[in-house]
């Protein structure tokens, strides 16, 4: 059957089982939008900015584990989408982004709304395509979805000139891909796994170091089982929150710049790191020469380039975390003696008692950490929590009782302010039955505030809890510690009326200054089933602690002191 390129795009989206596309139309992508209008199989959500479309597709992908799809036009439509691509790239999120391009004959002429999309996106996509003929379009679409979700996942851009979406041709969607140059390895090398198992059995102070890869490979059951069988304590990165579950006695906490004392000490004193889909990011390691000085390292990662990139690895294992850990469990089950690590567990328990993750609650002002804990008490594992970037993000990661993977959605690698709200819309589309709360700040929320309209139009009752300290808080914190309290351009005292702003766009707003009001407002927000701004006035000068100053050794933390 003959069909247009635009129809082929829609048919491919349908064939891939995609139910929701986020996007924004424009000149060069209009042919495709015309076909979207004519079909009834997938839903299109019109965000109010292309960046938000990509973040929403990203949030959808993180919440569901499926490939997120976004669609934008050429030129500014595409450049607005770049931050979304880069965000997904840094956190290895599977996306297919389809952009319109000027017709083939105009490419290279500086045509209206022409920009070199493949050139710009090359460093922030896993792969990208400029489609150059209708014949190759079905194959490229098939490959795009395959590349996005296989191996180490990532965003793929397909840039399609307008004349190609208008042209008629034969459509046969390939059933398989034929990419001789791209063969991801999932199964780890058995001999290497065996060596790693021997190392674990012989270690005295082993530590599971769990990263976002464990979420991406849906490995949480295997990881929990490995911990359970071996009774090896675990630390999680920012991206892995929820893998072990907050109630798990083997979970020491989050490590890194704002990790707990016990977690960072565990990493500093362990004799064997078992890295499961983590990549030794600088926010985790602190000063590299002081990082885990006593440890041998088992590094399990699907991306060989991550192994040995920053630290020397003793047991490299290239493979999918889930598959490798399942194999490890098989090999280690009868060999390991969990009592062997009892002293080590006791040491870490003692560290946690010495300097637990804590804050000083107050009767006068609301502490931001209290808000996080309170949300946890009120909605706990029922909710999906997204966040923007800054202090609120770190407090959420520290104090929210995450119980399952994909419950915590945030921009870890790129650190994109403005990510949380549109990502929450995507998560809500993926899980309409769940309460979705975006924990945000008075800085971040304004960076995609136009999505109030999207949320109201599509009845996506996402609750934005604004931890409002009238500051660009994290930058303010650094200015306090490292810039002699010169608060250069971080005072955000001039603010909109949040309640009115939300209401003006068809949502609901609550201004909260007391704990009682907070409980009431959150309950009303959940019951009200409207997109909500829940504006909470919090302590202006609260700091995120512990803190490892940038470039410092992981074991040198600024701590909150018990007495104050």
């Amino acid at each position, binding site marked *: 059957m003959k069909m247009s390129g635009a129809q082929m795009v829609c048919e491919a989206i349908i064939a891939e089982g995609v139910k929701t596309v986020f996007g924004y139309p424009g000149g060069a992508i209009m042919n495709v939008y015309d076909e979207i209008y004519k079909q009834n199989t997938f839903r299109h959500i019109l965000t109010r900015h292309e960046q938000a479309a990509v973040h929403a597709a990203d949030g959808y992908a993180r919440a569901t584990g499926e490939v997120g799809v976004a669609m934008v036009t050429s030129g500014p439509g595409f450049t607005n989408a770049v931050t979304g691509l880069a965000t997904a790239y840094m956190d290895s999120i599977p996306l297919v982004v389809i952009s319109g391009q000027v017709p083939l004959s105009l490419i290279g002429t500086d045509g209206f709304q022409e920009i070199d999309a493949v050139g710009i996106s090359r460093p922030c996509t896993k792969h990208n395509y*400029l489609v150059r003929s209708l014949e190759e379009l079905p194959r490229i679409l098939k490959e795009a979805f395959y590349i996005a979700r296989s191996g180490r996942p990532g965003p793929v851009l397909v840039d399609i000139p307008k004349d190609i979406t208008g042209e008629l041709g034969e459509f046969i969607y390939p059933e398989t891909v034929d*990419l001789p140059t791209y063969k991801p390895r999932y199964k780890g090398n058995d001999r290497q796994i065996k060596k790693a198992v021997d190392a674990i059995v012989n270690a005295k102070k082993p530590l599971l170091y769990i990263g976002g890869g464990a979420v991406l490979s849906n490995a949480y059951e295997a990881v929990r089982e490995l911990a359970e069988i071996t009774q090896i304590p675990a630390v999680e990165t920012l991206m892995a929150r929820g893998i072990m579950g907050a109630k798990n006695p083997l979970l020491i906490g989050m490590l890194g710049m704002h990790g707990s004392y016990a977690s960072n000490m565990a990493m500093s004193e362990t004799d064997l790191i078992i890295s499961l889909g983590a990549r030794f990011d600088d926010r985790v390691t602190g000063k590299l020469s002081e990082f885990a000085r006593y440890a041998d390292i088992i590094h399990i990662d699907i991306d060989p380039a991550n192994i040995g*990139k920053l630290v020397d690895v003793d047991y490299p294992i290239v493979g999918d975390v889930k598959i490798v850990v399942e194999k490890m469990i098989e090999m280690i089950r009868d060999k390991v003696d969990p009592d062997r690590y009892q002293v080590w567990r006791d040491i870490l328990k003692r560290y946690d008692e010495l300097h637990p993750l804590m804050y000083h609650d107050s009767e006068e002002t609301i502490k931001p950490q209290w808000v996080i804990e309170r949300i946890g008490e009120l909605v706990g594992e029922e909710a999906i929590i997204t966040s923007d970037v800054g202090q609120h993000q770190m407090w959420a990661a520290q104090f929210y009782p995450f119980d399952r993977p994909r419950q915590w959605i945030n921009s870890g690698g790129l650190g994109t302010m403005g990510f949380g709200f549109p990502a929450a819309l995507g998560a809500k589309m993926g899980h309409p039955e769940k309460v979705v709360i975006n924990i945000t700040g008075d800085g971040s929320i304004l960076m995609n505030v136009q999505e109030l309209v999207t949320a109201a139009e599509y009845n996506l009752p996402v609750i934005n809890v604004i931890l409002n300290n009238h500051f660009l808080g994290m930058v303010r914190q650094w200015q306090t510690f490292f810039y002699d309290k010169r608060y250069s351009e971080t005072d955000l005292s001039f603010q909109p009326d949040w309640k009115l702003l939300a209401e003006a766009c068809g949502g609901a707003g609550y201004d909260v200054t007391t704990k009682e009001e907070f409980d009431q407002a959150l309950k009303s927000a959940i019951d009200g089933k409207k997109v909500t701004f829940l504006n909470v006035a919090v302590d202006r000068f609260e700091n995120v602690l512990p803190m490892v100053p940038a470039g410092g050794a992981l074991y040198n933390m600024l701590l909150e002191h018990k007495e104050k």
Partner: protein
Amino acid sequence: MDKVRRVISVIVANEAQVLARVSGLFAGRGYNIDSLTVAPIPDTDLSHMTIVTQGNQRVIEQIVKQLHKLIPTFKVIEHEQMVEKEMVLIKFPIEGPIADIQALCQAYNGGIVNVGTEMFIAMAADESMRIAHFIEAAKRYQPLEIVRSGVVAMER
């Protein structure tokens, strides 16, 4: 860690953007390219790139892994035992001592490849180090223009 010179061959799908992907990888991650050559491999859909780079061992290892990670990359060869050749063309004014220059070229697997009314062009093909020596020797004859090809290499 000490910087080392490395010759790396990359076998890639012969498709649009592939050179930009490779050179962009070097540029974006701050790696050096001393030379880069590329040409199709006969009777295949592949191209052979030869890249000369330098860096410490960790950097070289990352370069190899990152090159391999590119979707169109079929194979990356970090050369150990190789035959390595480079070509140079040098233009001299016609007044130059053509016989002397020809003798010099012959010592470096080359010869005079073109003679015009104003100038003549000499060629040499040899290992990079020897090409550098050849250029050094040729400088006393007032060369007008020097063009090096960059390295091609083959594992033996």
